[in-house]
């Protein structure tokens, strides 16, 4: 099959950028989307043109590197599927596809379809961990975890940090990402000692980044390639409100004390 691609090209963060049109010819339905782009790029290089820059690594839907909008939908039309797992059999001859990078102020565009997602790492650094010095751990079976909690923690822990949730959200909120980590660790007994501190610090960091607020729209859940549920946002709100009453001293010096924004209306 033959397709027409309209791809966002942008040289760097300060370049205005524009859409450019490309032909993808003789596309095999068993190809993955990125393999199709590889072929387009090989042709561009052979013609002396600049290949399309896009982020990718594992090509099996787990590293979270890849991701862009296809016709306005983060990671494209298939549910629970990253762009690298999307295969061309889901498209047909003559299709016209618009490829754009994640659009969010917190994710500045670096080049073409590549964006800077370090804001996510900073949110994790603010509290998305359990403090457990190497060597100090008790026996692994010393702390039973109910199968139900373990499974729910695993559901939330499945987040790959790709940023689709931010890209799909009209507010560019990172609530699903932050909520997923807060839920994963907060559902486990090991995560209890730091539960308040974690919620306060991670939410404060997310407010400090340029993400918008969550207003319970739900676009995030619809595009998440790991099908994380928005109940993780409820958990985050609950943990945050509880912590905000009980203990504000956990905030770092550089994090402002602010009205809780996550989950509330502006």
């Amino acid at each position, binding site marked *: 099959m033959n397709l027409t691609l309209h791809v966002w090209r942008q040289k*760097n963060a300060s370049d205005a950028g524009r859409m450019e049109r490309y032909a993808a010819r003789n596309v*095999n339905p*068993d*190809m993955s989307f*990125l393999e*199709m782009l*590889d072929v387009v790029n*090989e042709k561009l*290089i052979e013609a*002396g043109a*600049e*290949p399309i820059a896009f*982020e*990718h*690594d*594992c*090509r*099996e839907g*787990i*590293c*979270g*590197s890849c991701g862009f909008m296809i016709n306005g939908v983060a990671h494209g039309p*298939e549910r629970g*599927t990253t762009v690298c*797992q*999307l*295969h061309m*059999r889901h498209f047909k001859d003559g299709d016209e596809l618009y490829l754009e990078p994640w659009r969010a102020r917190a994710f500045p565009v670096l*080049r073409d379809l*590549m964006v800077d*997602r*370090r804001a*996510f*790492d900073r949110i*994790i*650094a603010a509290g*998305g*961990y*359990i*403090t*457990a*010095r*190497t*060597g100090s751990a*008790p026996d*692994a*079976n010393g*702390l*039973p*975890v*109910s*199968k139900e909690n373990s499974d729910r*923690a*695993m559901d939330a*822990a*499945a987040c*790959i940090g790709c940023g689709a949730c931010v890209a799909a959200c009209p507010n560019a909120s990172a609530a699903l990402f932050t909520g997923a980590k807060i839920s994963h660790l907060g559902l*486990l007994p*090991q*995560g209890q000692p730091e539960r308040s501190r974690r919620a306060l610090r991670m939410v404060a960091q997310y407010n400090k980044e340029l993400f918008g607020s969550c207003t319970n729209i739900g676009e995030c859940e619809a595009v998440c390639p790991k099908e994380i549920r928005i109940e993780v946002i409820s958990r985050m709100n609950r943990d945050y409100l509880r912590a905000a009453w009980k203990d504000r001293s956990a905030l770092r010096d550089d994090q402002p004390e602010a009205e809780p924004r996550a989950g509330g209306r502006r």
Partner: protein
Amino acid sequence: MVLDSKVPSGPIEQAWDKARFEMKLVNPANKRKFNIIVVGTGLAGGSAAATLGELGYNVKCFCFQDSPRRAHSIAAQGGINAAKNYQNDGDSVYRLFYDTVKGGDFRSREANVYRLAQISVQIIDQCVAQGVPFAREYGGLLANRSFGGAQVSRTFYARGQTGQQLLLGAYQALEAQVDAGRVKMFPRTEMLDLVVVDGHARGIITRDLITGAIEAHAADAVILASGGYGNVFYLSTNAKGSNCTAIWRAHKRGAAFANPCFTQIHPTCIPVSGDYQSKLTLMSESLRNDGRIWVPRQARDMRPPAQIPERERDYYLERRYPSFGNLVPRDVASRAAKAVCDEGRGVGETGLGVYLDFGDAIKRLGRRVIGERYGNLFEMYERITGENPYETPMRIFPAIHYTMGGLWVDYQLMSTIPGLFVLGEANFSDHGANRLGASALMQGLSDGYFVIPYTLGNYLASNRLEKVDATQPEFRSTAVEVEAKIARLLSVKGKRTVSSFHRELGKIVWDYCGMSRNAEGLRRAIDGIRNLREEYWRNVNVPGSEGDLNQQLESAGRVADFFELAELMCIDALHRNESCGGHFREEFQTEEGEALRDDVHYQYVAAWEYKGPETSPELHTEPLEFNYVHPAQRSYK
């Protein structure tokens, strides 16, 4: 070059405890005076950087991806081994040690393997403490499953995402240290060379992948945890970015490269579907717990599997190896698959595939239980092939997955360059000629959490290192060489893309240095690689410039290194006139077609020293002694 493994004397059960007591320590208040570089943020690198940060060292950590959490450890599916014996089925530290030495076909260093088995129990404790959501039984205790090469159930897992969850534990701990100011993280920064001052590793040269800037970083010790070199085959289960550059450049600066021909082929991967194929997708070995592998008895039987009755199916692993059945080690399973496909009994359009069938398991356990165990793997398979494993057997074929070879290290995980430590898949140490399933995750975390914190301290406290800084001449001259190589790649402006060369290189090594090798084929491969490499430097087309983001340039440098490594790999395979583990020389096999080792002549580690461009490498050998697990013909019957 002298290879001194520094294994402590005395009984193996006490070797590591003895070593830890004898090693020198760095006073807690002095640790912050030392600068350590860690390259790579996978299980080995991430855990090392986090732990060294906790101890108080100043750590600079580098990765080429946009975030440390993208390291390819993330893709490991099946699980992590540990000798906890929670299942009460006969496991012990000694048994895990024994299984690993035997599984490695008696080509690994016993003391390193024993230590690995010993430390395995602490790894699980550490991961649980960090919140890794391992699977649990209803009573709240940890669940286990079996893996290839073992008759006990010792593998801990988190659905089909064990690698991701373990890596997130290490990544989160790493980010906590970044927040605390003890680790400085440099993402999108690729190491392109090692700087050696007065014979010690004292820093690295890096390229910023966004701005193109070449920078020098000085340190008191350098740790490489940059993963394996499977992508020398172009098609492998590795991530597209996985490469050998960090270890290869270190090799050219004096780090011996051990056993490069010991590459592992994983038996259960999704078969190739076309020429545009960019990588191969692994289907976890854990599937072999419940799936049954078969091909039709008849050659070229093109009937859909549902129409082939039981008596016309050959469950060839169960037939050939009754006691291990579908759970034979990877090298045995891969060769068996190749054998039946060579006989014309392979399935799928290309005839390069065998069935992994869950029909019986679904009848026995029900769809829901199978879904709980393998649901996400089944979905992954269906996304790629469009076929539903609940309804029709999966098609699988062997593919390159892991590399047992890597930089030579001693018992302290230090290479032949003082101050250069190598962890995880990047080193050669623990898996011999074949790695058992679920042990790569174990090794990465063992090296990073529990070995390097001790051995690094010993190195720092035992050596009076002069202070160096990045403006010194050695840093400048190394940076100049890096810039020159980049300029050369960009100046060729030939006719072929980097990918097209990489694909052709991959085909040569897959055909002649893959599952099955012979002397003539290897010689042909060496010639083919040399010719192709010569053409590369004459005809490669690397568009763009060095001063900004240039993915083609990144690839070009990595492929240039793959050419050189591929040649060494074939030289190593040619020199080793025996079959062992993943290295199968057709000239050396038993009557039943199993690997035939030559313990008289080849019971050693082959450590190659780089002697210069267009010069043959020099072989050094470390003889291996097996005092505890006595070499025997590996039988999984």
